[in-house]
């Protein structure tokens, strides 16, 4: 950083034209920031909804990348948003890669806009009114108006930046001729590719580099061949932005940044190796579409488009392999004692500004928390998870213990629940401040389901001691009762897994009613079972007290998990979900079913 400041300071002192060019770049970058800010205002919900529908197929995700980058004129913003969506689990890695590929094509429209419009029309004439209207709108209260304001101001600054760069290069030409430093041949190709990479890394924007290249080319300050090499370098350099952005993100973000780097480096290499062929293609296409022989700026735009298109076409067949490679290279760390503390997988501060994505991330993380809770509860009940999830009869499931010694549930809780639960609550609090009431209501329910999961684990911990004691008891009556509790909870966990993996709403309704019905059967006082066991002296008073308490724990575990299921795992179309409350069996009907069962 100090070196850059010194170089810039010296440059400003030596040449006022250099100052003008640099100011142009700075204004241009500021315009991009403003544009990003504007589009962020519109990304709360709407963008996520469109995304869900438009990225289920590879061609759709590429199309989404092209379209959004063309509209927003910032592949960096699209990359950052894609990392957020990926981190929140809204899309898969393959779709994320598709969007990035599309964004690379979309970014080429910038070159066309500048080369085709920016240099031919007096662009600064549009900049001023845009800035004025934009700034007025930025001061409005309505979020959408503010968003439009930022977009307008952003475009105004972009245009103004281009104008200053253009003016700067025109004036610069009169004093220093940069084209005298042109290097020909392969050496020049590599040197200028390197300069392109460096410039983009410094400016953090390939778009800005490209505009700089085009304006310099238009002013005759660089040769056409060197401009091509700079454009290749800009494409490679832009991946640095994604890499820097991914450093603070989760594994998905790192994988996507990896995909971006591999794609752009491969595309860059192809462009360097086949530069001759690319240049011939540019000449051919330019002649076909009527671009003048000496219009090198438009030819550069053609080149930029072709080599990005070729890159995408070459890379498409390898997306599967790329996903596989990245998943192996950046895997979730597991196994070692040191790393037994499980970490959050989906919560990332970059999604905080996108309410729908943040909500989806919290929901996914809660499901992750439930996965861990399932493991702890199964092992706390001394059951094997694989048995619970199998088709085995419940009698054989409880006959096959997880271990000979009871597990330390506190230790498991510390390792696998506490940290994640804390982070979910912390993240939810931060996300909530940016959410509308509708989202807050949804978030509140998810927070409740988190609490339900934790309460269910605590209930299992209370049960564990007596469960171990009485399932090994010589008193067959008490053993049967505790085996019944164990079997009931194993059935509950199994049913929850079925509900989670079922898409059919009618089946989900039936299964939820079933688990509600079974939970009621833990009431051993109401069903007279406890009285019967005591009256006939089949169990001691101590056993009776334990059984009464533990049945209550089992009932509470069931209730908590049922509540959680109804928030997290019910799926259906919007209309069905709006009818959910009216269609679910209520307490009176449940009572009726219980009577029918007993009768």
């Amino acid at each position, binding site marked *: 950083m100090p070196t850059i400041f010194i170089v810039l300071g010296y440059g400003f002192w030596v040449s006022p034209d250099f100052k003008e060019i640099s100011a142009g770049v700075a204004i241009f970058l500021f315009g991009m920031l403003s544009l990003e800010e504007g589009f962020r205002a519109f990304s709360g919900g709407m963008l996520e909804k469109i995304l869900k529908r438009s990225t289920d197929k590879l061609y759709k995700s590429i199309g989404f990348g092209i379209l959004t980058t063309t509209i927003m004129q910032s592949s960096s913003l699209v990359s950052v948003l894609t990392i957020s969506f990926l981190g929140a689990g809204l899309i898969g890695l393959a779709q994320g890669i598709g969007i990035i590929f599309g964004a690379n094509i979309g970014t080429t429209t910038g070159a066309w806009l500048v080369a085709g419009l920016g240099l031919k029309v007096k662009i600064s004439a549009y900049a001023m009114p845009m800035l004025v209207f934009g700034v007025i709108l930025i001061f409005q209260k309505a979020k959408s108006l503010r968003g439009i304001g930022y977009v307008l101001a952003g475009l105004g600054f972009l245009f103004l930046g281009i104008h200053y760069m253009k003016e700067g290069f025109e004036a610069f030409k009169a004093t220093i001729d940069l084209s005298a430093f042109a290097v020909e041949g392969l050496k020049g190709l590599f040197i200028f590719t390197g300069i392109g990479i460096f410039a983009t890394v410094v400016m953090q924007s390939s778009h800005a580099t490209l505009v700089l290249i085009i304006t310099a080319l238009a002013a005759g300050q660089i040769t056409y061949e060197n401009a091509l090499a700079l454009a290749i370098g800009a494409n490679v350099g832009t991946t640095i932005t994604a890499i820097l952005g991914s450093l603070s993100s989760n594994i998905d973000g790192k994988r996507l940044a990896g995909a971006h780097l591999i794609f752009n480096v491969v595309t860059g290499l192809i462009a360097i190796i086949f530069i001759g062929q690319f240049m011939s293609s540019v000449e051919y296409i330019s002649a076909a579409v009527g671009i003048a022989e000496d219009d090198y700026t438009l030819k550069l735009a053609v080149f930029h488009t072709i080599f990005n298109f070729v890159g995408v076409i070459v890379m498409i067949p390898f997306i599967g392999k790329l996903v596989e490679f990245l998943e192996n290279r950046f895997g979730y760390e597991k196994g070692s004692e040191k790393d037994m503390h499980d970490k959050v997988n989906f919560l990332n501060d970059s999604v905080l500004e996108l309410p729908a994505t943040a909500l989806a991330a919290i929901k996914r993380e809660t499901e992750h928390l439930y996965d861990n809770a399932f493991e702890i509860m199964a092992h706390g009940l001394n059951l094997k998870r694989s048995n619970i999830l199998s088709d085995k009869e419940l009698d054989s499931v409880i006959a096959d213990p997880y271990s000979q010694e009871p597990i330390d549930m506190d230790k498991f809780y510390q390792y696998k629940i506490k940290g994640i639960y804390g982070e979910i609550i912390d993240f939810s609090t931060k996300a909530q401040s940016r959410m509308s009431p509708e989202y807050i209501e949804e978030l509140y329910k998810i927070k409740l389901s988190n609490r339900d999961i934790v309460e269910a684990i605590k209930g299992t911990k209370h049960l564990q001691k007596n469960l171990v004691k009485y399932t090994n008891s010589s008193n067959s009556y008490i053993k049967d009762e505790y085996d019944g509790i164990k079997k009931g909870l194993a059935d509950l966990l199994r049913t929850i897994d079925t509900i989670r993996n079922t898409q*059919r*709403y*009618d*089946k989900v*309704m*039936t299964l939820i*009613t*079933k688990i509600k*019905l079974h939970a009621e059967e833990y009431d051993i006082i109401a069903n007279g079972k406890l009285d019967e066991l005591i009256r006939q002296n089949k169990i001691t008073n101590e056993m009776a007290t334990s059984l009464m308490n533990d049945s209550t724990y089992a009932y509470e575990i069931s209730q908590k998990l049922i509540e959680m299921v109804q928030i997290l795992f019910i799926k259906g*179309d919007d*209309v*069905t979900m*709006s*009818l959910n409350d*009216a*269609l679910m*069996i209520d307490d009176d*009907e449940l009572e*009726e*079913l219980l009577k*029918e*069962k007993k009768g």
Partner: protein
Amino acid sequence: MGIKKFINDVKESLGLNSFKKSGKKKSIKVLLANLEERKEEIEKQLAKKSTKALKEELSIIKMQIKKGEKLLTKLEDENGSEKSSKTLGKKSKN
């Protein structure tokens, strides 16, 4: 005219409220068809071998069918009364 009144007028003239209801009715009908299908399946299985779990599922499904049918009738009644009040309104204007 207030914005809310304007939106309501547009919704009414385009019949968007009844469209939402017909969507609900369609969903309930699909749900009922699925439940009926499962009910028949269970009855067939019960004819071969009677188990506690199947009997329990059957009584749950019967209860859900009853509940769904009740909701469907309610929606149809609401739709019917809305239509008749609209016709009456038009007649009184004439």
